[in-house]
């Protein structure tokens, strides 16, 4: 048997090496099991007088016999049997003996009046141990090895051996729990028996689990589309304010990254890559409780029951235009009939930035000297005075006044979240309510986020026909942002005195004699220096009416509203960082009032005719969005303490402006009619056909409407006769779907040429109103962008669902892409929306879940998700690359490449001293390259560098994303580890561009620069008076920022401890769990240049991601 290990590969190997149950097949273990068997006690002889009766019968018999009253709750005695040793005697003694067997006791309320109650726990420990043995089999009589047999309420237990046998000692009156993966857990009262033969039923629950789909639900086994479901337990595993972040690494096909490390920052989610080129609408549609227009980041993650991720065209087609980039269906928790459950979930955590340290001290001095040495202005420390010409600089150097600005601007951030929820109701009224509070203090001072949530979900059954419900949520948040000081902190020279030594206050000018060099800490001098405060109230009120007049027929009308009010006030005092140049204060207030309405009417009819099951769905959907925006600003506020509140006190008349493309009013409407047929034959053959006729106001007249059909089929192969008896195969299902979805990823009024007003005009001191053209020119011919997706899927479950896998492959072709196309700048405008270009996204997604070890004490399961998406632009107007007019390095569109690609020179290294002759052959204008200059790839071999030498160098799109979740539990401890790898993507690491070759500022310390003595290939030679963009030898400096951003990281590690029931119960707790989570604890990057940075952020230097340590508590009452 030994070689078994070496023959097995893949999931079987995992099973063989990890699953304890399988180990029982091995001879050595078998021997051990037999050893156990030999020590079992012989079965005790039963006294002949004993008989086994139904407890209920017995109690009734005794009531008559003793002319007394014995009351009991029906559930307490139902189905319970007792062994009666004596037929007559002292009633109270006999009651005690019999009730004890089944874990019960009694109380005597008065003479001849007894109440049966649950036994006090103490009685169990007092009872003596009795041996019991037996055998566990499947329904077909085959033995089940490895079944966990435990005395209920204890950890005392054992596994069945290879023949399904078990034996152990149990307290009298104990109940045994039999559990095994893929089978329904059974509890059996011992009741004095010594032999128990148990048959475990297969658990088909996993397949009967209901999955939420667009405008309805289906059983998981009947699913034809590609839908991945994440449940509440997993959502709260990552402590975060945003549930999307909790999906990271858990959903195949979804590429999720946190947008920034700032307090309250959101997440980016892409389902199966980028389809539309215009970035606005690449995110998935979010449907919360059947309503559109909600924002998932406003939801308390603890309120979420499940999130379904709809990926293929057949699942999303019912949402038509809106579903083109996938759909997230979020279902919040609902009330349940029965006992009221109260839960508390809370955590507290600390965060700290990961950001490269900056140059200071001798390291900085060396750079500065080197820069002046290159131009012949420094030869020895005697020249130091000359190289620090700015006021006060040289004095600071001599006094050793070195400052690590990056270190000074950072602080430790904190996060905390508290949620209390309540769940209860009766048969007819079900209520779920919750209150939540989330607070994050950012890793920069004056950056925080406070959110308050309240949710009430009520479902009311009025009669058998009518049901209504109301789902409401109020979210209020307050966010303080700030001008990011990291940019200033990485550019300033590391000299001066940051704090006044006597008062401890921030020195606005760290070098007092230089009143132009402002401290990055300038905004932290007081409450009235810099303020950027947003308050927001979001009210979601969704109501529904459901009418079910006939069996199988239902009509549901959903009316959803989302009302949102935001106020953003900004005040920057004349002494603030952002006003360093102008030294005048600026105050502004922006009010945004957002209304969103969504009215859906859904008619559903289901009918079963023999083996045929048909569900018809028809619906209409209307969406309307209105946004009002007003903005006012003024300069030179009279009193700083007025902040942005009284703009009348600004020195000039308040000016009103339409800022940054936002307009005073933006409105849009959508209307859709859709229908779907689901047909199933014997649960084996499944078909879904849907169609949606969709209209969008923002598209051009005549192009507003389009039709989006889809078809899908599923085949539950494992239900076929030829596989039905294959025991190891629990499920095998093949799915295929094909469909078309639309998208209108343009802003409203994209078909119109709009003007921009500005108050920034005057003649002399006479103000003059002016309008100029927006950079985007209108296109009156815009129409729908369409995506067709072919999806093939396979669902497999093996070994009684112990190993499950889902594999999907797909191909999405998107055409008529709505693209913001750069126009020749000579036309005076810069871009236009057009339907041009096509993309293709092809990919494979795999999710494998394995229950590695399942015993009562120790459980270990793993989920592996793998996402590979190959994205490429297949067609562009005019059949050639589109090189962007602004930031062409990262905004250009390249045929055959992903949308988010980098286009620039390819840096080969640095010209070395030995290559001087070769370097001199390359020229820019009259300039010949020298050692220490950047060495670029000369693509066209003309020995000079221009547009012809720029090319694709990499993309933000990863080659693949892998997530591995391991969840372990041992007794009361649980441990889960989520590891994440994103491989093959490039990032634009901004801090690398902070290399300061003139030495006028610090820059990151890890950057290694060339000198004649240090022949590195990383960064070019320092040179006095230059910036990267100003010296010919730095041509191609743009390429310095772009590095391979591949990383592996331990995203979260959570260790939890659940208080044993015996202790928790004493303080009226249903459950109590304490946990510790570490996030982003360990990161391995492929490129050494970003080793001190978390590349998940994508390279931005503002608000980098953090390491996080969280302590949390879950309580249930």
């Amino acid at each position, binding site marked *: 048997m030994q070689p078994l290990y070496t023959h097995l590969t893949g999931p079987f190997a995992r099973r063989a090496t990890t699953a304890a149950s399988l180990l029982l097949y091995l001879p050595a273990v078998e021997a051990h099991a037999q050893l156990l068997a030999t020590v079992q006690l012989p079965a005790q002889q039963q006294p002949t007088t004993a008989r086994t009766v139904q407890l209920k019968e017995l109690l009734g018999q005794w009531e008559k016999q003793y002319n007394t009253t014995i009351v009991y709750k029906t559930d307490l005695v139902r189905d319970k049997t007792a062994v009666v040793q004596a037929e007559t005697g002292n009633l109270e003694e006999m009651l005690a003996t019999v009730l004890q067997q089944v874990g019960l006791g009694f109380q005597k309320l008065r003479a001849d009046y007894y109440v049966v109650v649950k036994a006090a726990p103490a009685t169990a420990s007092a009872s003596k141990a009795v041996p019991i043995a037996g055998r566990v089999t499947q329904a077909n009589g085959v033995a089940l090895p490895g079944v966990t047999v435990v005395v209920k309420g204890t950890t005392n237990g054992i596994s069945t051996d290879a023949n399904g046998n078990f034996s152990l000692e149990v307290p009298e009156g104990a109940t045994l729990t039999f559990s095994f993966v893929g089978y329904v857990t059974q509890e059996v009262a011992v009741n004095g028996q010594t032999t128990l033969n148990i048959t475990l039923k297969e658990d088909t629950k996993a397949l009967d689990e209901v999955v939420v789909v667009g405008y309805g639900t289906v059983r998981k086994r009947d699913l034809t589309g590609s839908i991945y479901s994440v449940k509440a337990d997993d959502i709260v595993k990552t402590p975060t304010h945003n549930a999307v972040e909790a999906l990271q690494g858990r959903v195949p096909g979804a590429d999720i990254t946190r947008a920034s490390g700032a307090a309250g920052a959101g997440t980016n989610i892409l389902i199966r890559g980028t389809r539309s080129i215009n970035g606005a609408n690449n995110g998935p549609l979010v449907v919360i409780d059947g309503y559109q227009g909600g924002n998932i980041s406003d939801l308390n993650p603890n309120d979420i029951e499940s999130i379904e991720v709809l990926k293929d065209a057949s699942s999303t087609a019912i949402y038509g235009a809106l579903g083109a980039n996938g759909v997230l269906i979020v279902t919040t928790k609902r009330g349940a009939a029965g006992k009221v459950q109260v839960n508390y979930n809370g955590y507290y955590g600390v965060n700290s930035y990961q950001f490269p340290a900056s140059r200071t001290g001798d390291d900085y001095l060396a750079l500065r000297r080197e820069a002046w040495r290159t131009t012949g202005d420094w030869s020895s420390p005697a020249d130091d005075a000359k190289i620090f*010409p700015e006021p006060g600089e040289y004095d600071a150097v001599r006094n050793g006044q070195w400052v690590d600005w990056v270190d000074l601007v950072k602080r430790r951030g904190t996060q905390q979240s508290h949620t209390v929820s309540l769940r209860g109701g009766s048969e007819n009224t079900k209520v779920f309510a919750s209150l939540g509070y989330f607070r994050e203090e950012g890793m920069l001072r004056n950056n925080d986020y406070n959110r308050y949530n309240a949710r009430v979900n009520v479902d009311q059954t009025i009669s058998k026909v009518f049901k209504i419900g109301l789902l409401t949520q109020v979210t209020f948040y307050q966010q303080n942002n700030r001008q990011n000081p990291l940019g200033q902190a990485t550019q300033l020279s590391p000299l001066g005195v940051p704090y006044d030594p006597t008062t401890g206050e921030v020195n606005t000018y760290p070098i007092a004699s230089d009143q132009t060099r402002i401290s990055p800490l300038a905004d932290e001098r007081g409450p009235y220096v810099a303020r950027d405060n947003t308050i927001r109230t979001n009210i979601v009120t969704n109501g529904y009416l459901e009418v079910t007049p006939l069996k199988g027929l239902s009509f549901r009308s959903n009316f959803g509203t989302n009302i949102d009010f935001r106020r953003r006030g900004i005040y920057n005092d004349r002494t603030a960082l952002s006003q360093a140049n*102008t030294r005048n204060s600026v105050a502004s207030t922006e009010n945004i009032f957002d209304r969103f309405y969504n009215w859906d009417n859904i*008619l559903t009819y289901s009918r079963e005719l023999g083996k045929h099951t048909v569900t018809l769905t028809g619906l209409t959907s209307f969406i309307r969005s209105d946004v009002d925006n007003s903005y006012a600003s003024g300069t030179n506020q009279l009193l700083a303490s007025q902040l942005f509140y009284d703009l009348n006190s600004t020195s000039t008349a308040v000016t009103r402006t339409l800022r940054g493309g936002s307009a005073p009013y933006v409105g849009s409407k959508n209307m859709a009619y859709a229908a779907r047929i689901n047909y199933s034959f014997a649960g084996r053959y499944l078909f879904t056909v849907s169609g949606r006729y969709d209209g969008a106001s923002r598209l051009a007249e005549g192009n507003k409407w389009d039709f989006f059909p889809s078809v899908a089929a599923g085949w539950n192969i494992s239900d076929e006769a030829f596989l039905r008896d294959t025991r190891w195969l629990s499920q095998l299902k093949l799915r295929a779907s094909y469909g078309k979805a639309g998208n209108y990823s343009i802003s*409203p009024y994209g078909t119109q040429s709009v003007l921009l007003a500005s108050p920034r005009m005057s003649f002399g001191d006479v103000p003059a*109103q002016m309008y100029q053209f927006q950079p985007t020119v209108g296109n009156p011919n815009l129409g729908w962008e369409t995506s067709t997706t072919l999806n093939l899927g396979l669902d497999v479950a093996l070994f009684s669902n112990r190993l499950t896998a889902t594999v999907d492959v797909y191909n999405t072709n998107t055409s008529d892409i709505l693209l913001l196309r750069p126009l020749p700048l000579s036309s005076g405008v*810069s871009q236009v929306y057009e339907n041009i270009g096509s993309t293709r996204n092809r990919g494979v997604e795999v999710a494998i879940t394995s229950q590695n070890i399942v015993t009562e004490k120790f459980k270990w399961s793993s989920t592996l998700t793998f996402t590979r998406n190959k994205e490429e632009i297949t067609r562009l107007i005019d059949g050639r690359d*589109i*090189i962007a007019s602004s930031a062409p390095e990262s905004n250009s569109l390249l045929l055959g490449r992903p949308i988010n690609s980098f286009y620039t020179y390819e840096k080969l290294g640095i010209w070395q001293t030995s290559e001087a002759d070769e370097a001199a052959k390359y020229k820019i204008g009259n300039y010949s390259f020298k050692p220490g200059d950047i060495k670029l790839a000369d693509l066209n071999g003309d020995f000079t560098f221009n547009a012809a030498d720029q090319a694709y160098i990499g993309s933000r799109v990863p080659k693949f994303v892998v997530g591995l979740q391991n969840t372990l539990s041992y007794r009361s401890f649980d441990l889960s580890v989520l590891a994440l790898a994103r491989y093959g993507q490039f990032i634009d690491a901004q801090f690398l561009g902070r290399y300061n070759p003139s030495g006028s500022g610090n820059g990151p310390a890890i950057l290694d620069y060339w000198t004649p003595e240090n022949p590195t290939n990383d960064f070019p030679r320092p040179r006095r008076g230059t*910036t990267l963009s100003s010296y010919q030898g730095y041509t191609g400096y743009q390429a310095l920022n772009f590095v391979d951003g591949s990383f592996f990281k331990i995203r979260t590690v959570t260790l939890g401890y659940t208080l044993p029931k015996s202790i928790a119960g004493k303080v009226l707790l249903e459950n109590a769990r304490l946990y510790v989570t570490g996030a982003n604890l360990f990161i391995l990057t492929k490129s050494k240049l970003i080793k001190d940075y978390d590349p998940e952020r994508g390279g931005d230097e503002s608000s980098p991601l953090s390491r996080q340590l969280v302590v949390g508590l879950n309580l249930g009452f």
Partner: protein
Amino acid sequence: MKSFSLNLLGRVALAGTLGLAACNDLEEYNPSNATADTVWSTPEGFVTAVNGAYSEQRSWYGKEDGEFMSESGTDLWFNRDKNTYAAQLTQYAGLTPLQGNPNRAAWVALWKSINVCNAGINRINDAGFINATERNQREGELRFLRAFYYWHMVETYGGVMLRTQETKEPVLTATRSPVSAFYDLIIDDLKFAATNLPVNWGNEYSRASRKSAMGFLARAYLSRAYYGTGADAQQYFTLARDAANDVIAQKSALQVDLRANYADLWNPANNKTLGRPGGEALYVVSNSTNVGLNYDDNGNRLFHVFQTQYSNRPGLEATLAYGYENNRRLMPTLTLLDLYDQVRDNRYDGSFQEVWLATRTYTWTAADATTYAKDASVVGRQIRVGDTAMVITKRAIPTKRTKNYVVYDRDDVYLPNRTIRNGLNFVTLRKFQDPDRTLPSVQAGTKDVIVMRLAEMYLISAEAENRLGNNAAAATMLNVLRTRAAKKTPVDYTAAMQVTASQITPDFILDERAREFAGENIRWFDVKRMKDGPGFVSYIKQRNPDITLVQDFHRLRPIRQEELNALLNGNDFGQNPGY
């Protein structure tokens, strides 16, 4: 029960359908409706287009970018240390279609403005003007501005595309037009403007007025003449002379005149009077003292550009009067400083600052004496407020070691081969100083920028006369300016400053332009106009030996690569030669 429910269901469904039928109207609702068709359809609304057309000139005039584009890269200026982003223009280092921000930004700003001008000019008949004079004044402003922008365009980039229509839909191809076609349009526009613009706009003095159009017409004729040969050139030189002389002849009608004293032009207190009636300016770009009305909160930043460092010297600290020293973009070449006869010509003292007076008391220490290469005898000597604290001069001062103030003389600033020694200290052009800021560290200024002043008419007239062979007439014109420039006290040098016909050469006129206009956003255009091909290179290299990379094709700037990328026929259109 069942029938009741069905009935109800039917009604609900019907109500739903009826309710939704109204929703099928997917018209876009845009009440703010700021489209060109709506906003510019009334006379009051139309003015917002005219105002918009003025906007982008402020990204050139009053900014470092404009100085880099129109003054640097010539014989007059160099930047040694703080070149940062502009070395492509100041030193011709790596001037490529992909690099060189001021150049790339200018391309966008000019075309954006031209599009607004085209839109206004083509739409004015739909704006419902009833008063023809008002209509023609607005059209005059737009046509002045289009000519103004196109002159900058064609002189900077050469014969590129000539667009006269508003961009209403994507325009994806372009063809080059000859330079003469640009000038035909520019001259036509300016003639219309000169005829229709008012003499005076009152408090809105910085709008284009008749003198602006007439003056610019003279400049356009002169520039145009150099693209022609023989009779064609002669024709335009004649037109240039006549146009310039016309402005001079009508100066009182146009409410413009030379200021009596050259230095007064650059007294910050007089700045806001220059553009108003009676001032010397023909056209100004104004900045408001209300900073919120200015282009980008920064207003006029020219006072940064030429300022040397002074604040960390003994006896000195940063003051409003002495300006903002951190940028130090351009320093004068020895050639420029030596062009002036400081004894006779008041334009040197009027233009440059050589002496800084102490603003704080200071006593010399041994360490500072070493740093500033002083004789040990100065240790312990005091500088009192108001004493001389620093001198930076084009002269040589042999006794500088024993002076109790800091001295950087000719040899400290320049090497014997006329290149710059280290660029740390230099004579400062003081024309743009702005002491009316709130703090010395404030970088935003509110002074007006003089785009063109009456003196230029005399130089245009003289240059045209020279080319037409009338050097006597040219001398007469120059002598008007030289008479003003002559120091009158203690010795009157008016006679000594006069030039005669025999002295008039093109290079003398170039020199005279330098003396008159140094720093005034014109030098590069002057040099490129008068120096062709190898002459351009040798003129710059010889007079500004720090510029080593200039080549003959640099007479045109490169077209932004993005433009060629976006054009469907970018390859056919082609980059300017040499790039």
